[in-house]
C-alpha cells in the first residue's frame, strides 16, 4: 500500500468505524445521482408489475400497492461514488409481501428490477428476501422525485445503484442478467464490504 505524501485523512468517529465500508466516507446530506433526466411519475399513473420471464404474474396500481402490509426499516446505505449515509429510515412493502400477495413461489434465483426510465439492475432473490423492500416513504414523508419517488427499490446491504429509483416492476430471470450499470462495467453483485465496485473487483 503506497502512502500518499502529506495525506492524513479525516478521522472517522471510532464508534462508526465498523459501519463505514472500506473506501467510503460519511455523508450527512443525501446526494442525488442518476443516468438521465428525472422522470415525472404521477401516483395516478404508477403501476408495479411482477413478472416471470416475459410473463406478467400480477400488476398493482398505486392504491392497491399501498394496501399491502407496510414495513419500516432503518438502515445504513452505501453509494459506489464513496458516500455512506447512516440510519436512513424507510417505509414500504417487503419483497416477500409482494410475492405473497401474488401467490408466487420464487421460480428462479435471479431478479431484474425495472424502472420507468428504462433503468434496470440485477439482484439475486436471496438478497431481496427478508432484506429488501419497495420503499414509498423516506424519513416519514412520501419519497421525493429526486430520490426515486413515488417508489424505489431498497436493497440497503448492496451498493445503492442496486436500489433502483422509479421502480415499476420485478422480473424473475433464468440466469443472472446484467442490468444498466452492470453492462457499463460495474460489478454484478456490488457488496460494499468487499468493495465490489467494478467488474473484476
Amino acid at each position: 500500500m503506497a502512502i500518499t505524501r502529506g495525506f492524513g485523512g479525516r478521522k472517522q468517529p471510532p464508534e462508526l468505524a465498523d459501519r463505514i465500508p472500506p473506501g467510503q466516507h460519511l455523508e450527512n446530506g443525501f446526494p442525488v445521482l442518476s443516468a438521465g433526466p428525472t422522470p415525472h411519475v404521477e401516483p395516478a399513473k404508477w403501476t408495479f408489475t411482477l413478472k416471470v420471464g416475459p410473463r406478467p404474474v400480477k400488476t398493482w396500481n398505486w392504491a392497491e400497492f399501498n394496501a399491502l402490509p407496510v414495513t419500516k426499516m432503518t438502515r445504513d446505505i452505501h453509494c459506489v461514488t464513496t458516500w455512506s449515509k447512516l440510519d436512513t429510515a424507510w417505509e414500504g412493502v417487503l419483497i416477500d409481501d409482494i410475492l405473497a400477495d401474488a401467490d408466487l413461489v420464487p421460480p428462479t434465483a435471479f431478479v431484474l428490477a425495472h424502472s420507468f426510465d428504462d433503468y434496470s439492475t440485477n439482484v439475486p432473490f436471496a438478497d431481496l428476501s427478508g432484506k429488501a423492500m419497495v420503499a414509498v416513504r423516506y424519513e416519514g414523508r412520501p419519497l421525493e422525485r429526486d430520490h426515486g419517488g413515488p417508489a424505489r427499490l431498497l436493497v440497503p446491504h448492496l451498493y445503492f445503484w442496486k436500489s433502483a429509483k422509479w421502480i415499476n416492476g420485478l422480473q424473475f430471470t433464468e440466469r443472472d442478467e446484467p442490468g444498466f450499470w452492470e453492462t457499463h462495467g460495474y460489478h454484478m453483485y456490488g457488496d460494499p464490504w468487499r468493495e465490489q465496485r467494478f467488474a473484476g473487483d
Partner: protein
Amino acid sequence: MNQLPVRWQSARVARITQLTPRIKSVVVTPSRPFRFTAGQHVDIRLTAPDGYQALRSYSIASSPETAGTIELAVERLDDGEVSPFLHDILAVGDEIELRGPLGGHFVWSRADGGPLLLLGGGSGVVPLVSMVRCLRDAGISVPMVLLLSARRLAEAAFHDELTGLARKIDQFWFFLSLTREASSQADFARRIDAPMVSEVLRPLPSLPAHVFICGSNSFVNAASDGALSAGIPAATIKTERYGG
C-alpha cells in the same frame, strides 16, 4: 459485457494549474498509460500513514487523442476531505494512486456522430471539455454546441479555450451564461431554463442525436427539463450529477 478488471496504478503529478479561484487542473502521468473515451472518469485513492484510504472520482478533461497524460480538473470543496488535499498539498512530482478509465455511459466518441448538445454547470463542464477537445483533434465535422453556466466570468473554467475553439472550428458553437455577474462576454445572465436551451440549439442543423448534461443536481434537473421541453427525447439525454 465481459471486461478486464481495471487495476490501481501509480501516477506522477506532472503539472498543476489554477484554472479559477476554486478549480485546479491536475495533469498526471500514469505509470501504465491507457486509452479512454471522452466523458470517462478515473478514481483517485489517497492512503494515510495509518492505512486509512479515501477514494474519489474525477472526470477526465483531456482529449482521448492525447497520449500518455491525463488532465483532471478538481473543484475545491471547503468541507471536503480529498479536494482540499489535492488543492493545498499535492505538488508536482508526487505519486498518487489512480485507476481508470471508468464509466461507460456518459461517453462520446467520434463514431457516435452528432449533432451534439453539451450543457455544463460549473465544474460539470470538465467531461464536456474532453468531448470538445476530441472533436478538435479528430478532425471530423460533427455539429456541436456547448453551453457553460457559471456564477461569474472568473469561475468559468476553460472559458478562454472554448471561446478560441468556437472561432477555429466551423461546426462548434460555445455559449456562456453567468448567473451572478453581468458581463459583455456572457450570452445569458440567468440560470438555465427552457428558452435558453431552445436558443443554443439554433445553430444545429437538427435536434441533437446526443445530449450530455453535467453539473449539480439542480442544474441537471433544470437543464434536462429544458431539453425535454425543446422536444429532445429523454432517451437521448445522458446526465452526470456532481456532489454525489
